[in-house]
């Protein structure tokens, strides 16, 4: 497994924890999840800051067509 795949898996697990779901369908959008709310949003921003040293605006997060696209952008940016 290449290093980016591993990073990707880690990030997906962290997002699943934030959304409190066992398995995350990365082809979905954040807003497709019923669990996505303002508190989950804050957790996501905190995660980006603490683990990936980056910031994103609400609009930018929601502009991704899928959670997969979001994750790829985060890993690339790191």
């Amino acid at each position: 497994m290449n290093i980016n795949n591993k990073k990707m898996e880690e990030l997906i697990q962290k997002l699943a924890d934030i959304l409190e779901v066992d398995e995350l369908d990365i082809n979905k959008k954040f807003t497709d999840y019923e669990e996505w709310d303002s508190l989950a949003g804050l957790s996501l921003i905190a995660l980006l800051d603490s683990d990936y040293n980056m910031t994103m605006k609400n609009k930018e997060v929601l502009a991704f067509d899928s959670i997969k696209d979001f994750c790829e952008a985060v890993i690339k940016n790191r």
Partner: protein
Amino acid sequence: MAFLGFKNVRIAGLSAAVPKKCSIIDQNSIGGARYSAEEYSESVGIYQRRVSDTLTTGDLCYWAADRLIADLDWEKKEIDAIIFVSLSPDFMQPATAGLIQDRLGLTKECFAEDILLGCSGWVYGLCNAVSLVSSGNMKKVLLMAGDAKFRAKHALDPLFGFAGTVTALEYDESADPIRFHMGTDGSGFDALIIPDGGARHQLSVDSFKLENVDGKLMHRVQGRMKGMDVFSFGITTVPKSFKKFCEHFDTTLDSFDYCVLHQANKKMNDAIVKKLKFDPQRVPYSLHDFANTSSASIPLTIVTQLKCACAESKKNIICCGFGIGLSWGTASFVIDPLCHISDLVEVDEDGDDKIHVVYV
């Protein structure tokens, strides 16, 4: 670079007033949210707050000032200035500072002004007030800061509570310096905003039509917030401001006894403290009982959480106010046992201003 340092000013006293009426955070107060009240409180750190149907920021600051002036035994004629910081003034115009000058019975030889700032407002107001005193031109100045009853009726956001505070400043050549680092990013003007009611979008019948804003029904004279954007602003800007402050003034965060942060919400403040690597034991919170009280939050936290500690020995404090504007300010100052911290003032619903009422 907005670094400022002032000599010859001591913080002579602090007081805070809140409505007597307490509102517990329950399912009703968080509206149609998907999460439970318990989850909300645990995450945001707010369990109850003080609210009122009648009391304005002017009222709360009046009662806080009334108590502090009595406790300090200051002569009213000696008070040279009032600086009033709020986003919810008593009237659209005139300035509330003038109404309080009259209600308190201060001399007409009084410098009085309003400053329209929120979460960063106490630090900005302190910088203004301290600059008036530092030169020796003024000897005694009152800084008032807070937010309470809103401009228009709407459901209360559980994040916010009402409070008015007074900080008394006095000319004293033996005082430790008071230092500041201030910043502004107006490109984030709409991260926290009341769209209508200013000259840009005038008040109209349409202003009160309810619209769906992120799943909540709101009118346009109601504050709206891009929570995630404010959150990322806070956790990045505040640590940077502390770092710049420490570099510029050649000090370390660790040299301060307490770090008092604007009480934004627990998740945000905890994230900031973690980034600062500052001992959490020395970061007091008042959020749990009073919620986010805008420009009142830093002095309210000192009054309710640090009164005993500051009465024991001299304390070096660093603080940061940050939020709406977007605007932020970091300041350091000393509170010693000579500084009088009044007991929290609780105001009845009929404590409103009965003098300055406009009858049609």
